């Protein structure tokens, strides 16, 4: 929405907008890091050494970088899932469950499809099929919640939590039963390995970072484009900001709510798919514990903007990945990282604290996470 002549002042405006939007998250991170450092010192550690370990462990070498990217991949997908729902005025707490059903479906297609067909498939067909299966299952799983919201008024927060229980327990049932890896030595609840033809190739020889990471970056861009440049995105955002005005404007609010949940679930399912096809080559009970919940933190920290989500996914990935090195250098427990992450989230969610500490005036309107019960 700009003419070329204004591009100079416009780029300045965009920079201004970015710095306005990222100021609070940045200060929240800074404050959490300082507080974390104080706590490390308090329990007898050296905060500088600890943070050096964290940075070395996450960015210090090619391998460290590759591992950080590996961690960041599911975080980006799942963070986008939660953020897209936020944009549509919905709070998807069910990314964890959608991720699990996505992973199970991808694994199933990955190891069983050639068996059913009786012949093997080339990667170009098998891999996309596995990924699409995961996305579809995640989309259906979340779509049920969207349908309940649109037609019965059942609140998505409650229903996504309930669907998480169903998903996680069904997964456990399947992985312990019909889908269990039958190899004689196996005692773990996990699927067989998926076929070579369903695996995502690595980008570089010898490093674990795979093409799923590139796909994540591409999908982040795609979601930005979808939300801001298409009529569907306009509908999703309008329903999210003012459902009454959306109805007045002739937007089918019920359809849009369902569609938003389906898209959100597809992104979460994709997170599960990519973990199976790109990294683990199977689904194992408990591999993802927390991705879906960290995703909420990532979406909040990234202010539901795809670029912000990529950045916060990297931050969370780096902290998870660097924690081991930190523990090695300072004997600080890895749990400390969870604490710092919790502090960051606390400061982002309760941004009045940050605004008070740094004397920043509130600008624009508040982030609305979810509307009232039955709203």
């Amino acid at each position, binding site marked *: 929405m700009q003419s070329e002549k204004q591009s100079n002042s416009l780029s300045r405006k965009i920079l201004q907008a970015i710095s306005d939007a990222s100021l609070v998250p940045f200060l929240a991170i800074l404050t959490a890091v300082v507080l974390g450092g104080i706590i490390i010192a308090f329990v007898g550690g050296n905060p500088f050494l600890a943070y050096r370990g964290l940075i070395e462990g996450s960015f210090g070498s090619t391998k460290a970088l590759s591992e950080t990217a590996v961690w960041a991949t599911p975080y980006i997908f799942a963070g986008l899932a939660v953020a897209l729902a936020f944009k549509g005025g919905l709070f998807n707490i069910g990314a964890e469950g959608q991720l699990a059903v996505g992973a199970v479906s991808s694994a199933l297609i990955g190891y069983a499809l050639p068996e059913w067909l009786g012949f093997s498939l080339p990667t170009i067909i098998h891999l996309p099929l596995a990924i699409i299966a995961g996305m579809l299952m995640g989309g259906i799983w979340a779509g049920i919640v969207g349908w309940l919201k649109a037609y019965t008024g059942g609140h998505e927060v409650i229903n996504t939590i309930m669907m998480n229980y169903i998903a996680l327990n069904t997964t456990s049932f399947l992985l312990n039963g019909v889908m269990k890896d039958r190899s004689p030595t196996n005692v773990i609840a996990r699927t067989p390995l998926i076929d070579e033809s369903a695996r995502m190739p690595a980008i570089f020889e010898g490093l674990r970072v795979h093409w799923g990471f590139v796909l994540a970056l591409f999908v982040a861009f795609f979601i930005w484009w979808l939300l801001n440049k298409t009529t569907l995105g306009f509908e999703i955002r309008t329903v999210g900001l003012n459902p009454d005005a959306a109805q*007045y404007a002739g937007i089918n609010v019920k359809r849009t709510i369902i569609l938003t949940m389906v898209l959100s679930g597809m992104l979460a399912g994709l997170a599960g798919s990519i973990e199976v096809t790109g990294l683990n080559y199977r689904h194992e009970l408990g591999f993802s514990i927390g991705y879906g919940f960290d995703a909420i933190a990532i979406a909040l920290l990234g202010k539901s903007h795809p670029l912000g989500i990529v950045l916060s996914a990297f931050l969370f990935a780096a902290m998870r990945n660097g924690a081991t090195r930190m523990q090695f250098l300072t004997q600080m427990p890895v749990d400390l990282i969870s604490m710092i992450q919790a502090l960051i989230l606390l400061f982002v969610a309760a941004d009045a604290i940050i605004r008070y500490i740094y004397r920043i005036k509130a600008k624009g*309107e508040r982030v609305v996470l979810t509307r009232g019960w039955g709203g």
Partner: protein
Amino acid sequence: MSEPQIVLEAKGITKQFPGVLASDNVNFDLRKGEIHALLGENGAGKSTLMNLIYGLHRPDKGEIIVNGKQLDVQSPNDSIAAGIGMVHQHFMLIPVFTVAENVMLGDEVTKRGALDRVTVAEKITEISKQYGLDVDPNALVGPLPVGIQQRVEIVKTLYRNAEIVILDEPTAVLTPQEAEDLFRIMRDLTARGVSIIFITHKLKEVLAVADRITVMRAGRVINTVKPSETDSAQLANMMVGRQVILTVDKKDHEAHEDILKVEGLSVRDQRNLETVHNVSFTVRGGEVLGIAGVQGNGQTELSEALTGLRHPTSGKVTIDGNDLTGKSPRVITEAGLAHIPEDRQRHGLVLSYSVADNMVLCDYYHAPFSSRGVIQPKALDENSRKLINAFDVRTPSPFVNAGKLSGGNQQKVIVARELSRSNVKLVVANQPTRGLDVGSIEYIHSEIIKMRDRGVAVLLISAELDEIMALSDRIAVMYRGQIVAVVDAKKTTREQLGLWMAGAHVETV
């Protein structure tokens, strides 16, 4: 006594809100036993001044003196203790409580830990008799008529021994007859030594009831006058700072064929109560049909049913021959509806969207604004610049959020979007000028008349009788969900319409 006793005095009150000087060195005094009207447009600073006196805000500068003592208001409790009571425009009553329970709320009388309704009821009856305020202390508040609910609010202030009563826009929700009743009560109160500050923007009421009139504009006191020394034209002039045309300039209408046809329409509200009963009427091309009525007589549900926001329970709605009963807003819009909704911030706008986005809120999905599902920013930009010019929307740029504009300019964004659509056959305008400044009102009125003159059918719903009378060619009166009269606008009077609005039977149609 030659010198009247001053019960309340505000000296040099100044209050700055972000971006607005809401109160600029205001001086105001209230004499014992008088009705002092505070007159001004919306946003002139009347409510701010009263909120400062009542303790909801604190002034930056200046002092408030009550009965000779400086009042240091931290909260409404201090002003209540000082004998000031306020009746808000929106009543602060709990519908499922009785009158007595509502009156004692916040100041409950108890007997061994239980509410003492008997003592309170006795005191209310006593107040009722003393001031001629007839209310039943044991009645539930919810089903009471609005006029009676207002009395309960007044009793509430007197129960707390208020000697100064502030009435904020008390007649906005009343029928002309109920308003007459209120004026009688106000005179009774002042005869018994109560002093009243009467906030309003209606000139006629001020002239009818006030002892003195203070006119405010843009946070300043313009003048204080006596009704006998002024007239409505002069007051209007002081309110807006320029000569106002109180009537809309319009040519005689040439009505064409029927455009909107409503037959036997019934609608239920969200509580599932039928608020529109078996309503039938038509609006012809080239005419304005005004629907007059006190707010809450089914107008909201009627307009929602016509525009697709609510399903009617029975009946038929056709626009230019197309049956559109119960169709979605999009289908109705595509059939030629332009809808200026009652609540501009709830339905009409997305406040955090830019002006440009809001100007395509209903049309974003078709050419030239989008192509194959992708929004075309250039088309949005051109469209908004064109409309901002054509409809005189005061905005720094098309990219500013609609929420940042004044109420009048927000409404102009909606009017521009709706009336500029190429296929408009019917305009439904519900309270199109509520809460706006006079300049915007004049502008929107002239746009509505322009549509009429182009042969479009216009359905105007308004609680402002003056607006209905100024714009309409025919007037329908709505009372308790029914159209009780349809008359030629030239052959009726305010008084006659007021009677119908109050539910009087119709002898002649």
